[in-house]
């Protein structure tokens, strides 16, 4: 009686036989001919894709009304959003990490374009035995709330409880720091309306009709799922935008993120849901009073630190440890 062959040996042997067969076939056609054929096939596929995509643009009336309502202006954008992040565990939605309601955070943003400037005020994450602790660059635990601002390559952070005011200068214009750190990349650097506008223009939003939610008439717009590969990790991101039925300003943005990480054994899916509920979304006129909203104004005495980006990066190499 012989033992079953190891599946890897069997696979490698079979691959060897396939390689042997392939090496006995006539040589493949020259590459230039292959490339031309590939280019032709790609052009045909692209044309086919366009033919399929164009009629599927959805309700033209809704798209036009939304685009008109969401037209950009040059005021100051102001919004307050509560973000909740949950992970699917054992068939139900649980906070992330489990046992710590850390995924719930309130962020308020004042944002101007041309030139890009913003100020963001965020509630500090809860801390506790299951949550860990967030510390600032001085090693103090962050509590209550913090403020961050951006203006022409300078990032400023203010922690009122620890009375620290840190200024880092010299960020390049392309730095990711130039955008408020709210969750969704599709929100175009903090403004969800810009993301909705772009998706509408590209015909990537499906109108799912109107409904009543908490006494408010809303319209649901669903984006086609977006697939991405990072290394061997596969991700599928599905976005749903719930907007006011009349003004089209955002009411809620839901994101369902299904990740298949490469190092998890077994290769199980991780499903994370992020819900951004907009408590306020408005455009303010641009004047001296609203311009002041873009700048951090610390209260009382603060410990101010000025540094360049290089100095800040050097500091990051030896980060602080928790001091309190």
């Amino acid at each position, binding site marked *: 009686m012989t033992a079953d062959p*190891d*599946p*890897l040996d*069997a*696979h*490698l042997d*079979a*691959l*060897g036989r*396939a*390689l*042997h*067969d*392939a*090496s006995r*076939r006539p*040589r*493949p056609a020259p590459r230039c001919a*292959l490339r031309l054929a590939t280019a032709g096939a790609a052009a045909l596929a692209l044309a086919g894709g366009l033919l399929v995509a164009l009629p599927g643009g959805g309700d033209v009336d809704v798209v036009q009304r939304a685009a008109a309502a969401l037209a950009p202006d040059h005021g100051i954008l102001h919004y307050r959003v509560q*973000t909740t*992040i949950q992970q699917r565990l054992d068939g139900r939605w649980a906070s*992330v*990490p489990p046992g710590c309601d*850390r*995924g719930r*955070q309130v962020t308020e943003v004042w944002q101007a374009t041309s030139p890009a400037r913003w100020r963001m005020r*965020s509630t*500090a*994450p809860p801390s506790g035995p299951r949550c*860990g*602790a*967030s510390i*600032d660059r001085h090693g103090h635990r*962050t509590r209550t709330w*913090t403020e961050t601002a951006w203006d022409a390559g300078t*990032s400023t*952070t203010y922690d009122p409880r620890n009375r620290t005011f840190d200024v880092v200068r010299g960020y390049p214009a392309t730095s*990711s*720091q130039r*955008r408020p*750190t*709210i*969750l969704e*990349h599709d929100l175009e650097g903090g403004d969800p309306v810009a993301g909705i506008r772009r998706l509408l223009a590209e015909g990537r939003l499906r109108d799912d009709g109107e409904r009543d939610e908490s006494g408010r008439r809303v319209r649901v717009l669903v984006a086609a799922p977006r697939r991405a*590969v*990072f*290394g*061997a*990790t596969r991700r599928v991101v599905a976005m749903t935008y719930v907007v006011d039925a009349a003004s089209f300003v955002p009411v809620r943005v839901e994101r369902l993120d299904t*990740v298949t*990480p*490469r*190092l*998890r*054994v077994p290769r199980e899916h*991780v499903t994370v849901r*992020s819900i951004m509920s907009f408590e306020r979304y408005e455009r303010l006129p641009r004047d001296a009073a609203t311009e002041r909203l873009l700048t951090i104004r610390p209260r009382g005495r603060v410990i101010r630190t000025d540094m360049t980006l290089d100095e800040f990066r050097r500091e*990051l*190499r030896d*980060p602080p440890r928790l001091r309190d």
Partner: protein
Amino acid sequence: MGRDLDIDALYAQHREGVLRFFARRTADPEVALDLLAETFAQAVASRGRCRARTDDERAAWLYAIVRRQLARYRRRGSAEQRAIHRVGLERPPVDAPLLDAVVRRTGLEALRTELSAALGTLGADTRRAVELRIVDELPYPEIAARLAITETAARARVSRGLQALGRTLDPRLVQELPAR
């Protein structure tokens, strides 16, 4: 001479070494098998240009393809199939027992155990940040959101964790040279 390149012999001599090389660097048995097939398909397709005369030269020629495939994989995020299609290679199917066998044979378990143990040496916050970045491969803004910290703090936390891991992990496990 290139026309004398014996693909069967080259494959028999290097198949396990190349597979281990890819597995240790991608930590993914499925990707390692994809890259193995594409590498030898590329060897079949370009065997006419091989000028190696000795075993050492043939190994060097093959590993030049291997490193090129790995670099492309890291750049594109997926294994190429170009040479497989070009030479009409009919790959045998891949199933779960096969992937388990690759994990066992290439020592991926040890690498993962080492990584888990190394992660265990980090503080809870740093470990979570490294897991989100390296294991779940999330972008920094999302890590920041999930940990409720700024993006700068997220980058600092991951950087700190990776430095600590670099000191803890056995480099031989991660960068083992291909067997000859």
